[in-house]
């Protein structure tokens, strides 16, 4: 009996020793917070290449497009995000996102120079669909503001990456390299479109 009592106490002590403190949620960096939002545009290659293409095209077009396009994009993307948040159905989202990579890639590859307003409108139309795709995830986020900050910052940084790559357009070889990048983006977009 004594041995049994000792064994029971030891078993209870062992069980309690294995228990971990409950860490419910501290409100920082939750699973659906900043980190998830930040990774959303980066982990989707179709988003990623289209965002870089916006920056590349802006750099290729020069001032004022170099800053008008990256400022236009997040603002209009937010409108698309609201449509996603509210749950208004928008058709062909994935198709248009793939098309955005094709279209923007071709613009860079062919070095097309439409008027500023036309470039801004084209980028804005694509931004609605990208924003919609991001916005659909927002209502499920534990920290919606953190999620929103994450994906907006990631999108902006991808634009910046495109602009920085695009600065080599001032050199002849660099301009050719940027056009090659545009062609590669268009091809990748075409791949996403057909698969």
């Amino acid at each position, binding site marked *: 009996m*004594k041995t049994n*009592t*000792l064994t029971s*106490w*030891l078993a*209870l*002590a062992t069980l*309690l*020793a294995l*228990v*971990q*403190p*409950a*860490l*419910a*949620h*501290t*409100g*920082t960096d939750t699973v659906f917070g*900043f980190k998830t939002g930040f990774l959303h545009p980066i982990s989707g290659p179709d988003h990623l290449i289209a965002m870089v293409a916006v920056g590349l095209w802006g750099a290729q077009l020069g001032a004022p497009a170099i*800053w008008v396009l*990256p*400022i*236009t994009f*997040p*603002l209009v*993307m*937010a*409108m698309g*995000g*609201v449509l996603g*948040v*509210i*749950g208004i159905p928008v058709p062909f989202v994935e198709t248009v996102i793939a098309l955005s990579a094709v279209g923007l890639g071709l613009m860079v590859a062919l070095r097309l120079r439409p008027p500023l307003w036309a470039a801004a409108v084209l980028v804005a139309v694509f931004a609605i669909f990208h*924003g919609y795709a991001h*916005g659909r995830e*927002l*209502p499920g986020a534990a*920290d*919606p*503001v*953190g999620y*929103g*900050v994450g994906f*907006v*910052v990631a999108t*902006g940084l991808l634009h910046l990456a495109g602009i920085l790559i695009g600065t080599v357009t001032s050199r002849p070889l660099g301009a050719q390299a940027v056009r090659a990048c545009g062609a590669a983006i268009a091809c990748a977009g075409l791949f996403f479109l057909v698969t």
Partner: protein
Amino acid sequence: MKPWHARCLIAALAVLTPTASQAHLVTTRLGDFYDGAVHPMTGFEFALPWLALVILAALQGPARGRWLILAFPIGLLLGAALSAWQPGVQFVQIVNVAAIAGIGLLVALAMRLPTPLFLALGFVVGLANGYENGEAMVYNTDRFLFICGVTAIGYVFATLALALINTFLDGRGGWRAIALRAGGSWIAAVGIMVAGFQLSTLYHG
């Protein structure tokens, strides 16, 4: 079981008992002043309007923008005090989110506002933000210290951030103001989406 066995086991159980869960960080354990000072840093919804407002102040120019250092902390002080007096006003949250979107847009457009209007904006944003921070006070919080903490950090943030951004703008290259405007567009984008989310939550319950 011998008595000392039982004592050892009880001691072992006491030592091995799991610690309390820390679901919500209510206190910094440094006192209510620091709780108030740290609270605005605990969420993007508090920090974003502050940042947007300071960038907007910098874009107004040093002579006009520096008045924010006065108007904003006074707004925070009154807002936090109001939350202690009349808690639970729901629309303040919407005001704060609208402020993120609105001020972000003003920054993106590099809008120069008349000084009284800019000061009123700084005061109202401080009021709404102070109120929302003040809502974090619980029954045993020393309200005076907490409110002082919120106000002090607002003053320190506005002063330091404004000085830093003005120094940044004074540097060479026209890209600096454009970078701030791009930052404003990012802040506005977050504000627009979160405003949409909150309105849809209100509408759909």
